């Protein structure tokens, strides 16, 4: 009589253990299971110097094949942009003016967007991933539109500008896109352009789609704050460094928008994203020479550069490499 009862008891205990193991396995890969709120609250602003008040400790990321941790930057369970992210540009202000506010600058920046995909610098971003895959390093320029205006922007009107471009059909509504609002130097972004920041990236749900967008102003408005050299490798004239200064900030925002598009993926304990950790850190540089990869002004001024792609030299800050212990890197 006792033997069958013992078997049943053993079977029940065995079943209980298996259920417990299964339950714990499910919890371990689903750390946010207790709450289904929107993971992106309003009004998060932080600088590259970090803000411990605004960040919470990193969780131990679900270590799947795509998520690598332990390199000085932490994974917080949000998605990265995989595949080939599309970049769209809204040219805001007066881009048919003088200095660096010209059609030539528009062409140069769009060429920059068209060729940065797969570059040595962009591939540094491929060290970041989420649990379904890694950033590829590919980028595609998806098109642009012009918004002629003399009005300054605020955070609110910036979002409206992006929204209008989508609603009018000037640009497609693309959840795998990054929309850059690039302003001419007569335009201010009143929430802190030039006094606090050179650019920023953020996201909003517009028309039911998660839209990632960035602001980068023409840094000829504040060369001492946002340019590393007054005449860069792509300057159209001496002391007109806007193209190169903007290209540098653009690359910064692009790396971050791809590796932390919803502001909940990759940043360190101080709140710094990958490019923040290397802000204005350029690494080894070379001097422009007469090989056609710099403008005549850039060559004449012996401008410095550290990246070459698309038949142009650029001076671009390094990006934080999420491998080998982590470091600012120009390439993998």
């Amino acid at each position, binding site marked *: 009589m006792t033997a069958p009862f013992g078997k049943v008891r053993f079977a029940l205990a065995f079943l209980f253990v298996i259920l417990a193991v299964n339950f714990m396995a499910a919890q371990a890969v689903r750390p946010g299971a207790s709450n289904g709120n929107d*993971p992106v609250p309003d009004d998060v602003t932080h*600088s590259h110097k970090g803000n411990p008040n*605004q960040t919470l400790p990193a969780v131990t990321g679900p270590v799947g094949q795509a998520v690598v941790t332990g390199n000085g930057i932490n994974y917080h*369970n949000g998605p990265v942009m995989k595949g080939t992210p599309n970049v769209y540009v809204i040219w805001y202000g007066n881009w048919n003016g003088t200095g660096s506010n010209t059609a030539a600058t528009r062409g140069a920046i769009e060429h920059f967007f068209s060729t940065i995909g797969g570059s040595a610098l962009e591939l540094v971003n491929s060290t970041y991933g989420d649990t379904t895959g890694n950033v590829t390093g590919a980028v595609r320029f998806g098109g642009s539109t012009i918004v002629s205006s003399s009005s300054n922007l605020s955070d609110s009107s910036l979002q409206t500008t992006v929204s209008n471009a989508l609603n009018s059909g000037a640009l497609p509504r693309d959840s795998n896109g990054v929309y850059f609002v690039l302003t001419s130097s007569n335009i201010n972004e009143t929430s802190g352009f030039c*006094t606090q920041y050179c650019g920023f990236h953020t*996201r*909003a749900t517009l028309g039911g789609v998660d839209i990632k967008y960035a602001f980068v102003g023409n840094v000829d408005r504040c060369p001492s704050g946002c340019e590393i050299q007054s005449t860069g490798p792509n300057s159209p004239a001496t002391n007109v460094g806007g193209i190169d200064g903007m290209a540098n900030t653009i690359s910064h925002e692009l790396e971050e928008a791809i590796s932390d598009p919803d502001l909940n993926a990759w940043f360190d304990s101080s709140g710094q994203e990958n490019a923040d950790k290397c802000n204005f850190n350029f690494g080894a540089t070379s001097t422009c020479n007469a090989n056609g990869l710099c403008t005549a002004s850039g060559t004449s001024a012996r401008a410095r550069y550290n990246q070459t792609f698309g038949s142009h030299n650029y001076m671009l800050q390094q990006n934080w490499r999420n491998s080998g212990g982590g470091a600012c890197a120009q390439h993998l």
Partner: protein
Amino acid sequence: MKRRVFLISTLAICTWGLLAAQTKKTARPAPSPAAQPTDPLQGSRKVITATRTVGAFWDLELSLAEAFSKKDTPGLNKLLAEEFKVWRPNQTGSAIGREDWLASGKGNPKPTRIVQMSVESYPDLAIVHFLGAVSASGSKGKARQFFVVDTWENHDGNWQLVTRYQAEIAPIIMPARPTGKE
């Protein structure tokens, strides 16, 4: 027969459990579709690329805070102008002079943690504002926050703090950076 049924059941439960775990192993989806209007008095959440000027004065402010905490007289002499004074709300409307301020203790705290810095920069003058914090001391202490405006002057290439405007504020609850745990 019973054993076979039991083993098959166990296998099925294991498979179901592992599959359930795998399906939850995807990255979190994009945030909810509710559009959030931007409050013009609060700005919007964003991740900024700080200016070079902010970087430079951030380092100066941290050096000053460190010199305070270490009572580093040469460091303080380098960073504080002789005519340095502090304006803060008090009963008489008087400024606090350099020596009195340095000698004062807990009643006149010197913020050591800095966030939200902005710099208005001119050739020989910079106006720097930030939120400063003093950490809680002891188990009963409370962290305190201050809104600080500093004016720095460039004396022959050496930036010195000439005036500080400091007011304690009700602690601002910083919105937490999303962690994916929400």
